[in-house]
């Protein structure tokens, strides 16, 4: 931390200004008072006879309830060549049922004050709405109807397909999202977990109504579903409402589709790829690293490691890349769940000319955390940053529901809400270094850079002679053998 220089023009003039204010005698910040304890309660849970789990987390003081129906499977079930099937299936739930058209459903939901949203991700498909307490019964009626009785009309499929293809055109024109999609593909190779969950320009036209109906019939079943209710609600009332709207939902004969095997941690294929986007106004840079399922205390250790590297403004990546060097507006990292596994991603955007330099800085920071223990004061502050962010994320009914959803989608207990802060507090520097040394080595790292390649490819090749370059028009993120369409 550099103290401000006192001889610049700015400081001199500001000193004059300050000189008029001798009334401020306080040269050091006043210390904090005694902390008030922060407690997050474990949600209550009970299952209906048909196997539907009902999870309730009350929050007092606001007349709002978030209702979320989660089915515990998602984009990992997309068959080869049909990337985007689970996403399309979940998105189309709200676009027509046996009783109502898509416009009727949207109007009914919004007359209740909320928006009915549906979609799929990894290991989860969901329908959700947030309404004021008196509207909850009617809102749950809609959630149940779209979950249980969707029609997947071909006209609605065609409409959503066209919209999704247009949305892909926009995200493929954005260097940040292009780099993210490519890095995930590099990290997982051709297996079940590396394709784009939203589909590709090649896969979306292959999806037929029968594919949607078959996936819905197999996967949307009460014994693989969870109803989450957060906010102004009790368990008793939640169970009564759940029985009314979901009590007659019967599981189909036969077993639910099995999850594919966990993704690999060492994918075949290139380690560094450049997507050439000749008109991009910046370069998008993403370093991805697959993490195997984490056990016990490993989970919190990895989360704190992620916070040290790229969680919050003062993390190491932002320190090195933004604060010290002015190379980006924001450099950050996150661990995204893929079933019980995880995908670590460090990401940023920078001017095209700086792309190779920031790749080198990313790698240096991963090396450093493997080689050197995190100093105690830095570790303490990053743990508090992580705890604070978690605490604030559950201050809203929707945030609380999302936190429960991500736990159940990863096969974990919602009761971890209550124990998460203690688990983070227990992480020591040796836990982080051990985890980093075992998991963050160069062999697993995959790097994607999307931008105007002529401005950085030579410098990048000096670091990574084996890198591959793909033109943005040749990119095929579903191609099993690589990234390029043949």
């Amino acid at each position, binding site marked *: 931390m550099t*103290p*401000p220089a006192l001889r610049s023009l*700015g400081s001199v003039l500001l*000193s004059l*200004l300050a000189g008029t204010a001798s*009334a401020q005698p306080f040269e050091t910040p006043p210390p904090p008072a005694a902390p*008030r304890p922060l407690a997050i309660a474990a949600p209550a849970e009970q299952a209906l006879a048909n196997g539907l789990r009902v999870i309730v987390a009350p929050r007092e003081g606001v007349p709002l309830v978030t209702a979320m129906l989660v089915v515990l499977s998602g984009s990992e079930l997309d068959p080869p060549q049909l990337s985007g099937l689970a996403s399309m299936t979940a998105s189309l739930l709200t676009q027509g049922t046996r009783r109502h058209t898509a416009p009727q459903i949207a109007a009914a939901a919004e007359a209740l004050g909320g928006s009915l949203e549906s979609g799929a991700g990894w290991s989860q498909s969901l329908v959700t709405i947030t309404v004021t307490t008196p509207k909850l019964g009617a809102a749950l009626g809609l959630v149940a109807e779209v979950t249980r009785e969707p029609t997947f009309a071909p006209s609605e499929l065609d409409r959503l397909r066209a919209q999704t293809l247009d949305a892909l055109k*926009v995200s493929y024109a954005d260097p940040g999202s292009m780099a993210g999609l490519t890095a995930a593909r590099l990290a997982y190779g051709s297996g079940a977990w590396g394709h784009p969950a939203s589909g590709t320009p090649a896969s979306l036209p292959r999806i037929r109504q029968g594919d949607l109906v078959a996936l819905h019939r197999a996967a949307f079943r009460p014994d693989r579903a969870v109803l989450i209710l957060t906010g102004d609600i009790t368990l008793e009332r939640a169970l009564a409402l759940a029985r009314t709207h979901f009590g007659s939902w019967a599981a189909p004969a036969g077993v639910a589709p099995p999850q594919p095997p966990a993704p690999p941690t060492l994918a075949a294929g290139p380690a560094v790829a450049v997507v050439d986007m000749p008109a991009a106004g910046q370069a998008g840079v993403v370093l991805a690293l697959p993490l195997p399922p984490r056990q016990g205390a490993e989970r919190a250790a990895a989360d704190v490691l992620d916070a040290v590297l790229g969680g919050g403004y003062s993390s190491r990546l932002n320190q090195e890349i933004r604060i010290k060097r002015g190379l980006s507006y924001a450099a950050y990292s996150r661990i995204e769940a893929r079933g019980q596994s995880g995908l670590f991603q460090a990401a940023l955007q920078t001017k095209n000319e700086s792309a190779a330099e920031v790749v080198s800085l990313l790698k240096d920071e991963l090396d450093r955390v493997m080689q050197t223990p995190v100093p105690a004061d830095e570790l303490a502050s990053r743990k508090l940053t992580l705890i604070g962010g978690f605490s604030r994320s559950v201050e809203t009914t929707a945030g609380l529901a999302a936190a429960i959803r991500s736990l159940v989608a990863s096969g974990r207990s919602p009761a971890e809400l209550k124990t998460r802060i203690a688990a983070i507090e227990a992480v020591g520097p040796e836990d982080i270094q051990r985890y980093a040394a075992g998991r963050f080595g160069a062999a697993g790292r995959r790097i994607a850079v999307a931008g105007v390649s002529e401005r950085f490819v030579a410098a990048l090749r000096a670091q990574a002679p084996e890198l591959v370059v793909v033109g943005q028009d040749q990119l095929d993120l579903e191609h099993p053998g690589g990234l390029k369409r043949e």
Partner: protein
Amino acid sequence: VNSRLLAAALVAASLGAGLFGAPPAVGAAAPVAETLKVPRIAYRERKLGNGMTALSVESHASPTVSVQVWYHVGGADDPDGRSGFAHLFEHMMFKGSKYMKSEQFDRLTEDVGGENNASTAEDVTAYQAVVPSNHLETLLWAEAERLLNLRVDAASFTSERAVVEEEYRQRILASPYGLFFEAVRTQPYLRHPYRRGVIGSIENLDAASVADVVAFHATHYRPDNATLVVTGDFDPRQLDAWVDKYFAPIPRPAAPLPRRDATEPAWSADRTITVKAPNVPLPAVATVWLAPPVTDADAPALQVAAALLTAGESSRLNQALVYRQQIATQASFSADLRAGPGLLIASAIAAGGKSPAAVRAALLAEVKRLADRPASRSELDKIKTMLLTQAFSSRQTPLGLGMALADAAVLGGDANRVNTDLDDLQRVSAADVQRVLRRYVTGAHSVAFDYVQGSTAK
């Protein structure tokens, strides 16, 4: 709105006083609210001797407190030849003061489990922190300290200016529609400084110096130009004592507050503007009209009109252009209301293969239909229920509650608007919606934008 941090950009977006910009409270007379007991926001307001306003609301739902300082200065106050400066200055407020090191503000917030961000809009600059409530006094000290004693050195200025230039590239150049929406929000103005935008230009940012930072701080960062908002877990008597201790002694400068000399002449003709960019995945169109200030009596009816057209999947524009006609990937009508003359912006991104002219025609036809024929009672009720639910959702946290209050006080000019704005929205009738659309839209001149692929200088 441009923020210090990307992550909070969505939260900060409501600073612009757009559709949900001033999340309204509920009136006892409101039909929607009859089924709910909705307490008024019981805020406290103090005016200090030096002209500073201090607002607060207690809420003990979590052991956190939000401390916000909003300065009545924004991109419209950029010095000549320094467009983007108010926003660049906002970044410099984290770079140290007489008794704080550079980035020490992050040590006092993030490092103790809190967070901070700041954002600059056309009319205001907002500094927003949330901390565990036992750190309230420390944060009050820190906000007072950087109001009084800002220090900036040349090295941190140069480095942070590079960050802001990367922010410009990320928002305007790399984002496929960044250049378009920046043009739509600025280029319609003939004379008003809103014409320059908040993010500015690389050239003007490069021209800025540390001397500009000093002058800007002296001119605009003074207690009579600031509003402190504290919301969450605190003791009111203790808060008052700390405000007296840290903020009350800050002297009010002898010079009067600068008045922004800014007007926009009535538009006397329709205009068209074509914006070209090297990276346009799908063409876009917009048509823009001048709006009255956010404090105008017509503002609530314009906000309801915008919500009827845009809020939710069942909104008129989404149903017509995206769902039925399938000629747009998205379509919206926003009431971008500001302290001065704002903008009414109808915009749409074409669906693949659709003609921009057809998209614009469909967009304008829907706006005209709402001006020509009254909305039904049930459609109006739907919109009012959505606005109410949105208000509850955004006020669940100390940060959201504080933003609603600050928005009412600083942009609306009266903190009590936090309790009256939804009353005003609830009173809007179908005839009011027609009247304001005829006055400001169908009966007024406009600027039409086309966004197309083409080479531009970077």
